[in-house]
């Protein structure tokens, strides 16, 4: 046997790892922190911890035949006796190993008293010969290593034992955690019943660990993804800390010399090892991210050294992690938070240092969220704790409330939802109506869109006869004008300088029409994008400059609005934002009022008639599709869905099912949030997606009880299985009602729909003669 190297005093080393031959299930370290034992189904080895790497010292799996006694679920190295190890085998055996045995087989004792897998073994911290085991069969057994059999058996009276741990401070006490979520405290001298029991988790408690210093602190980890710290020193067990992790907790180990720190690893999915400060439960203090499969065993290398952590994993590696190499998630965390409330309120938390310039912050707040008011500045202060190694972050939380009726509110949404017509009229009328609605609610862009849709998809015979007149009028009008959009909070001035005659306008239009064939229809989408940004005055001021500088590009602009929905933009370099304004201008020029889309569109129809009077509606589909996507992207899913429904088959094929479904879902969700049940139901009904339509079929069952025996009716609506009586008899004809049953909610009499209707023509009283004045609506 090799001579063990002793590192006296401090341990030293670096982050290092070695490959094992097989996945590890558990690891344990000897008291002087020089060797580590790794145990798993197919591995049982001892590694020496050298300065620069792991060195295999001993393979304990000897013999030709594979024995299940070697298939370890857990392993523990004795903390008093450096040659003594114990393992828990998956077949229910508890085995002790003595490294001092002269032969190759180091197995010393074999206890096969458990009937099921043994999950955990634990040596007594101070008593040399005492070993405790906990098994799947629900029993814990205490062994005296000088005897061949267990000295006492503890029955948890419940399901499997997942972990057993001797208390470090109390000689006689041990804790056991169970699959049903309970933790029990036992006195080793009293095998008849537990001292205490409490429910720690929902679902199995996979692990527990006593605090090395604080008497009575016990940490438990469970399948419910929680780590909890319990204070047992009081009469009632009290939960003092709780850490929520992202996966079920497989192991938990207190960090030596750091009162509030503990390390955890998870059972599934998450491969990292976290070190938590239990007082800061929302973000791990440190993370080790080396493993590529779940970590199955963690142990601090030395019981008084907080800087070395050893871990074994299913990925067949054994790691030594240095604390200084750990990643600190807190450094990468974003200390700012922002959240919108349902009614347009906004909460914003940021580092105090950032908030300290109050003037500028206030300004920003007001400007970004008009109508907002920094009414409740709330400051959180936390007393700095010297033992806490977390960076001190104190944040200020501000809440900006929106004023009632301001633009941040969602009134427009509700109004629009209620006023829009989605079906029941000819297409053109629907569009017309919706355009009016949008206009009334000061949403010119949407209004314009509806009008355009009407024109695009209506029959080409529709254009009004007055259009020629309008065209002439607008074409000959003076070309410089300024328009005030009183529905906006700002005013802008637009200069139009068009010097050409109507004839040249026509020519331009003609040219552009040729262009459209070669360039596709992207320009249309640009138009729409531009319109949406109307609110941004910065952009406008920029535009004005552009226009002033490049007047020669303006003429095409005027041409576009005339028939913008059918033609492409000849790659002119001016900003896209300009285009939308042009129709408004021409409209207002025509009527000398603020915009009237009708007029401008009659212009369009004329230009349509001029060269291609029979453009098929299909031609616009790509444009409309892009427009819908644009609206949805902008967050106005209402518009997207409404247009989708109104257009129906005209556009549906163009947009893929999933997107449509997504829009519908979002819109329905919004509607339901605003409690617009009727609208939401209408939308569901009108939708053409399978997944949406079936929303209406959930929770449509109506449960009825038999009127005689008050039991629920099982299979048929009219006859009770139990009392064999016909439950629903018509009060008029006294026959069983098998179809529509109508009844008064006041006296609960009723019957066939038609019978009751007839009856009520003659009488106001209940047909059953109960004297109630029935109301059927």
């Amino acid at each position, binding site marked *: 046997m090799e001579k063990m190297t002793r590192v006296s005093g401090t341990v030293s080393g670096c982050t290092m790892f070695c490959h094992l031959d097989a996945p590890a299930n558990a690891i344990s370290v000897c008291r002087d922190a020089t060797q580590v034992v790794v145990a798993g*189904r197919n591995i049982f080895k001892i590694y020496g911890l050298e300065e620069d790497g792991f060195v295999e010292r001993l393979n304990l799996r000897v013999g030709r*035949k*594979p*024995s*299940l*006694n070697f*298939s370890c*679920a857990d392993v523990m190295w004795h903390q008093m006796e450096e040659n003594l190890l114990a393992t828990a*085998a*998956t*077949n*229910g055996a508890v085995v002790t190993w003595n490294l001092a045995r002269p032969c190759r087989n180091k197995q010393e004792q074999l206890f*096969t008293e*458990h*009937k*099921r*897998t043994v999950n955990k073994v634990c040596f007594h911290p101070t008593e040399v010969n005492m070993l405790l085991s906990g098994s*799947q069969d629900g029993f814990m057994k205490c062994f005296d290593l000088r005897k061949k059999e267990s000295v006492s058996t503890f029955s948890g009276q419940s399901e499997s034992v997942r972990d057993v741990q001797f208390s470090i401070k109390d000689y006689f006490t041990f804790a056991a955690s169970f*699959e049903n979520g309970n933790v029990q405290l036992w006195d080793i001298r009293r095998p008849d019943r537990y001292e205490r029991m409490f429910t720690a988790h929902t*679902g*199995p408690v*996979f692990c527990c660990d006593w605090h090395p210093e604080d008497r009575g602190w016990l940490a438990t980890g469970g*399948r419910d993804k929680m780590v909890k710290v319990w204070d047992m020193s009081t009469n009632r067990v009290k939960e003092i800390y709780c850490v929520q992790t992202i*996966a*079920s907790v*497989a192991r938990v180990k207190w960090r030596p010399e750091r009162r509030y720190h503990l390390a955890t690893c998870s*059972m*599934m*999915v998450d*491969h990292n090892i976290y070190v938590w400060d239990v007082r800061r439960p929302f973000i791990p203090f440190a993370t080790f991210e080396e493993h*590529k*499969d*779940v970590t199955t065993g963690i142990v601090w290398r030395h019981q008084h050294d907080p800087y070395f952590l050893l871990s074994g994993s299913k*990925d067949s590696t054994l790691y030594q992690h240095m604390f200084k190499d750990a990643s600190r998630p807190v450094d990468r965390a974003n200390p700012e938070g922002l959240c919108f409330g349902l009614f347009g309120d906004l909460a914003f938390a940021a580092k105090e240092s950032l908030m300290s310039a109050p003037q500028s912050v206030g300004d920003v707040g007001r400007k970004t969220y008009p109508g907002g008011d920094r009414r409740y500045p709330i400051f959180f202060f936390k007393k700095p704790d010297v033992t806490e190694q977390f960076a001190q972050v104190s944040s200020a939380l501000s809440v900006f409330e929106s004023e009632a009726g301001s633009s941040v509110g969602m009134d427009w949404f509700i109004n629009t939802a209620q006023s829009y017509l989605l079906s029941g009229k000819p297409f053109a009328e629907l569009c017309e109506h919706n355009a009016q609605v949008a206009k009334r609610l000061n949403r010119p862009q949407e209004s314009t869109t509806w009008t355009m849709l009407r024109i695009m998809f209506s029959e080409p015979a529709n254009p009004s006869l007055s259009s020629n007149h309008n065209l002439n009028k607008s074409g000959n009008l003076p070309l410089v004008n300024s328009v005030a959009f009183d529905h906006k909070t700002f005013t802008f001035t637009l200069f139009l300088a068009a010097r050409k005659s109507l004839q040249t306008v026509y020519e331009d239009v003609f040219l552009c029409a040729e262009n459209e064939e070669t360039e596709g229809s992207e320009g249309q989408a640009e138009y729409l994008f531009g319109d949406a940004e109307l609110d941004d005055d910065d952009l406008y001021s920029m535009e004005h400059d552009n226009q002033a500088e490049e007047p020669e590009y303006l003429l095409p602009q005027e041409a576009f609005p005339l028939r913008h929905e059918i033609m492409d933009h000849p790659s002119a370099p001016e900003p896209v934002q300009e285009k939308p304004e042009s129709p408004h201008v021409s409209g207002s020029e025509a009527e000398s009022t603020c915009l009237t889309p009708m007029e401008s569109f009659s212009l369009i129809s004329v230009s349509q008639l001029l060269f291609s009077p029979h453009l098929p509606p299909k031609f616009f589909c790509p444009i409309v599709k892009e427009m819908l996507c644009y609206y949805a992207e902008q967050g106005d899913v209402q518009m997207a869905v409404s247009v989708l429904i109104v257009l129906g088959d005209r556009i549906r094929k163009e947009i893929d099912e999933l997107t449509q479904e997504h829009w519908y879902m979002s819109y329905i969700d919004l509607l339901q949030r605003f409690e617009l049940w009727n609208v939401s139901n209408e939308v569901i009904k009108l939708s053409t997606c*399978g*997944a949406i*339509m*079936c929303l209406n*079929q*959930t929770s449509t*069952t109506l*449960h009825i009880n038999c009127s005689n025996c008050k039991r*629920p009716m*099982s*299979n048929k609506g009219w006859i009770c299985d139990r009392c*064999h009586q016909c439950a629903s008899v018509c009060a008029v004809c006294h026959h069983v009602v098998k179809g529509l049953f109508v009844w008064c909610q006041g006296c609960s009499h009723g019957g066939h729909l038609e019978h009751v209707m007839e009856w009520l023509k003659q009488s106001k009283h209940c047909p059953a003669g109960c004297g109630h004045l029935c109301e059927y609506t």
Partner: protein
Amino acid sequence: LRYCYRSFSGQLIIGAMPLNDSTVMFLDEEFSGRMDNLTQVMGLHPHYLQAFLRCHYYLLRMDGPLPLHYRHYIAIMAAARHQCSTLVCQHVQEFEQIGVCSDWLRGLEFCPQRLRNLNEINKILAHRPWLITKQHIQALVKTGEHSWSLAELVHAVVLLAHFHALASFVFGSGVNPDPEVTEVNGVTDDICPPAMAGLCTCHLTNSNQGNRNPLRNPDTGSELEALMERMKRLLEEREDDDASEEEMFTRFEKEKKESLLVVSAGFDEEVVPPSPVARFVDDPSFGYQDFARHGEDNPPTFKAQDYTWEDHGFSLVNRLYSDIGHLLDDKFRTACDLTYYNMASHEGVDTSMLRRALFNYVHCMYGIRYDDYDYGEVNQLLERNLKVYIKTVTCYPERTTRRMYESYWHQFRHSEKVHVNLLLMEARMQAELLYALRAITHYMT
């Protein structure tokens, strides 16, 4: 009016039916509004029925990653693998009630590619779950037009396993299609004609001659006694049974191998007649093959302790499809712990050993081994007829006959045999889930 419902147990159950249990009634009412035959048979064990229905309706009706019609269609696909027309009819009907995409019901080729992609894991899970690998998962999840999200996939996998197992139960206890189902439906008529319904009824009709009164049979008394005797002996022996490792290993291998020989009589690779259900089946020739085949490289044994339902399966499934873990956990636990401390006419018997033998034997056939279980017990406790029944019900339930059902445990009550079926169903479902979830875990790491 239905006075009786049809199952192997026939009218015998009526008297024993604990249908006055109002909670169960309400639970069922709440969800389906009617009691089908299946529920009534399961209603023999109301405690279990409650857990079952909760899980069943959560899978089919409550919040989940998959849309409702997908769920029923997957149910149809799963049940069709075992030609279980009862379940297929039921879900065809439910699918129609949803009222969308009804052309999917014309067959697999009419449903979207995305669903058709499930065929592969459907058939593997149904017949040879040990073959499922992370490549299968990868193929479904990899980004593309027809890809599945992991959450959707987990939902689908749970549905598949649930309905495969349910098919086992339906055939195992001879649940017949509801008469109403075939009466009421208009469109489904071509799928569930009365003749098809006969697929299950036939057991009942063609084996009337075997309907002897079990209590009068003189042999059977000793049979029960013998079983109880063996259980008692095993319990005593356990204390001083020092079977070596190899011994334990060979016992497992022996059980595994022997399960090959346990084949229902007269079974050769018969071609299943084309039935209306067949339109939902892809590659119908893919059937059960024994886990351990002679002279071939067998897949490695699944070590139960390395991937357990409680630790790993639960964590994964609950992460991707919230709450289903708890419901499944509850269902497994209820099925495994269910006992009335009765064996036939004897009372106060601890049946845990027998229940564990049944459960582990199913897992054994699927190649799942528990290190801490002595497979010698299986051999002692489960007689050959029972093994034949178990193997048929779990591996190819469509071949179950009434004769098989009657050929074991003559003295036991029907409710006890239904209990056996519940155990088989849950064991099978867990085995399938373990294999599937392990593959998903491998894919994720």
